[in-house]
């Protein structure tokens, strides 16, 4: 196993081991760049993964104190992971490319009361990296992989979609092996995807990127290592990362460059916590954009109480989607589009998420129908607002003495009409198949955490440039979904992976040119 000295200032330090950090680290290591990856969570093996939501929640979920404001759950504003593999352990593997118009949010939507900007790169520029990302992750419908076999929920959505006249219904675009791929087995339709895949059929960096990086001899993973502060030298260049190790001892890893991939909230928090005399408002925050324009998605869930058995717990928890509503069509009464995705809920999730706060017959009548419940999860374009974001609590500190993050999120006026339209689509879909009742619900925690350190053409509008490189600091990179200039309608992981592959190529080129 490769071990680097703490004093070795030739290494690139990557903070986070999920879709952004795990991929970036492996891509660099494959090219011979020495990488130290700091991961706040512990390292599970496949045998630690069990079909038990409660156990896996304890093993994987980020439970450190956070405060939600606005529409977010005050105690649990975001559902993310603190484990090697990050949120690729918990994700449901929907892997859809953003549409070309979604890279031009400001121009396309021309929307009021928004801090929207266009991405400083186009879909065409990202295209080759999407192709590489799909090959890396084994996305169904690409690289010779068939579509994922449709489970009951997805068959049901497809049948309803046919009746409604939707055309783009597919179980391609899922990073779950529809056939053996990359040394990992075919999906056994176990369910429990959100609790980690027991057999590794769902792509996660835990058992792909991380061991591949280790095999190069250019990579060291340090789990249970919480980054506390990024340090710089007198010239304002990044020089080291201070972190707490498993036992809480404070360590300092010197670095040639630092890439931050802590999943929006922790990424912004780390930059804010790294303030200094030279950077009094935090690193890369000269324009005041760190922690601003945080995005999630406009989310609508809906349960359909169907006339026949569905058994939605059987099989992949998200086994495909309907893309017809992704288009931008203002005649619907809102800007941007949304994806209609299949979903599955355990009884506990039905009770806590779909019927949160309900009790008595309001709840139990629904639960009595559990096996006849079909579920959909709709994610739609969020609209940037500078007031949505992450800031530090003035007094409250976590177990490391770091200020606790406050996450503030309010709906943009575009969200209400979109949500209503999406709920109607779900209702029409389920009712076309004879649903006796459709129950839409809101989700007041974010699983897609985006923006907050966004890329921008003009330094005044964001934190990093089109490569994720901080506008203000040459050897500091943003390497996760924090870079997103806008949310798009699709689940973000595929785009995060494509950006990480692209950023790794850029870093190698910059190193070769002596510019890093």
């Amino acid at each position, binding site marked *: 196993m490769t071990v680097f000295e703490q004093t070795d200032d030739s290494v690139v330090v990557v903070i986070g081991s999920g879709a952004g950090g795990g991929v970036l680290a492996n891509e660099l290591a494959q090219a011979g760049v020495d990488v130290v990856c700091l991961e706040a969570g512990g390292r599970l093996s496949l045998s630690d993964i069990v*079909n038990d939501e409660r156990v896996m929640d304890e093993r994987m979920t980020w439970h450190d104190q956070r405060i939600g404001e606005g529409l977010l759950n005050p105690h649990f504003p975001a559902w993310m992971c603190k484990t090697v593999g990050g949120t690729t352990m918990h994700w449901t593997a929907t892997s859809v490319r953003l549409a070309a118009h979604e890279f031009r949010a400001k121009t396309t939507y021309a929307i009021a009361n928004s801090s929207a900007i266009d991405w400083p790169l186009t879909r065409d520029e990202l295209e080759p990296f999407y192709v590489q990302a799909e090959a890396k992750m084994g996305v169904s419908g690409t690289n010779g992989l068939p579509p994922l076999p449709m489970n009951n929920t997805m068959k*049901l959505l497809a*049948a309803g979609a046919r009746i409604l006249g939707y055309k783009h219904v597919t179980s391609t675009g899922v990073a779950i092996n529809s056939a053996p791929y990359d040394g990992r087995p075919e999906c*056994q*339709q176990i369910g429990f995807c959100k609790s980690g895949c027991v057999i590794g059929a769902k792509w996660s960096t835990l058992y792909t990127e991380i061991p591949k990086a280790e095999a190069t001899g250019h990579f060291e993973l340090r789990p249970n290592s919480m980054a506390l502060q990024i340090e710089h030298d007198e010239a304002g260049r990044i020089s080291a990362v201070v972190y707490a190790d498993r036992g809480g001892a404070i360590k300092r890893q010197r670095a040639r460059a630092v890439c931050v991939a802590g999943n929006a909230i922790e990424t912004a928090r780390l930059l804010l916590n790294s303030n200094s005399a030279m950077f009094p408002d935090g690193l890369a925050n000269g324009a005041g954009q760190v922690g601003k324009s945080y995005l999630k998605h406009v989310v609508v869930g809906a349960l359909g109480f169907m006339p026949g058995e569905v058994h939605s717990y059987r099989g992949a928890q998200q086994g495909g989607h309907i893309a017809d509503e992704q288009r931008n069509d203002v005649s619907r009464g809102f800007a941007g589009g949304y994806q209609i995705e299949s979903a599955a809920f355990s009884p506990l999730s039905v009770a806590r998420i779909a019927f949160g706060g309900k009790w008595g017959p309001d709840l139990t009548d629904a*639960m009595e129908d559990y096996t006849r419940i079909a579920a959909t999860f709709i994610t739609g374009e969020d609209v940037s607002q500078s007031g949505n974001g992450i800031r530090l609590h003035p007094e409250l500190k976590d177990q490391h003495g770091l200020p606790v993050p406050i996450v503030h999120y309010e709906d943009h006026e575009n969200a209400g009409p979109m949500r209503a339209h999406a709920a109607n689509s779900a209702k029409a879909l389920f009712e076309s198949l004879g649903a006796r009742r459709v129950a839409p619900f809101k989700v007041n925690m974010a699983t897609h955490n985006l923006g907050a350190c966004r890329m921008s053409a003009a330094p005044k509008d964001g934190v990093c440039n089109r490569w994720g490189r901080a506008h203000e600091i040459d050897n500091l990179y943003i390497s996760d979904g924090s870079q997103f200039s806008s949310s798009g309608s699709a689940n973000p992981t595929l785009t995060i992976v494509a950006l990480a592959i692209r950023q790794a190529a850029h870093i190698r080129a910059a190193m070769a040119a002596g510019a890093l």
Partner: protein
Amino acid sequence: MLTGAALAGLAVLAGCSGDEQETPEEAKNFDTLAALIVVLFPHQNINKSVYEDVANLVRAKLSSREDWARLQEEGLAALSAAAGALWPSLEMEGRIKATKAISETRFFQTVYSSALFEFYSHPVVWAHVGYPGSSAEHGGYINRGFDDIDWLPEASQ
């Protein structure tokens, strides 16, 4: 009602400290907690022992909180105040009405979220609603009906 022996057994299950006997007051509070959980999740044909199991788990978890004793005392007093009589003495309809009246209190919210979590994680409740739980040890559903839905309209083509 619970027998004394069952109560003693449950007290052990709930992890009551040392060899302390459960006081009559504690036993009464436990009965009320279990009855409240019935009001929250009134499934037909789920045995009373399940509600008692859940009450035990809830009590075990909440009693580790410093403020639990006071929260419980105030909460149960509020229930009876809303009922205009001792809450456990009421029929179901009266219990529901009084429970609604206190549903914004911290006591209610605390008991509700803890009980919800335990109740819908209980194996008997899972079996009742038709959820089998863990599937990996059975090879998942690839050969056990993941795509067996048979009542959808056929594609017209």
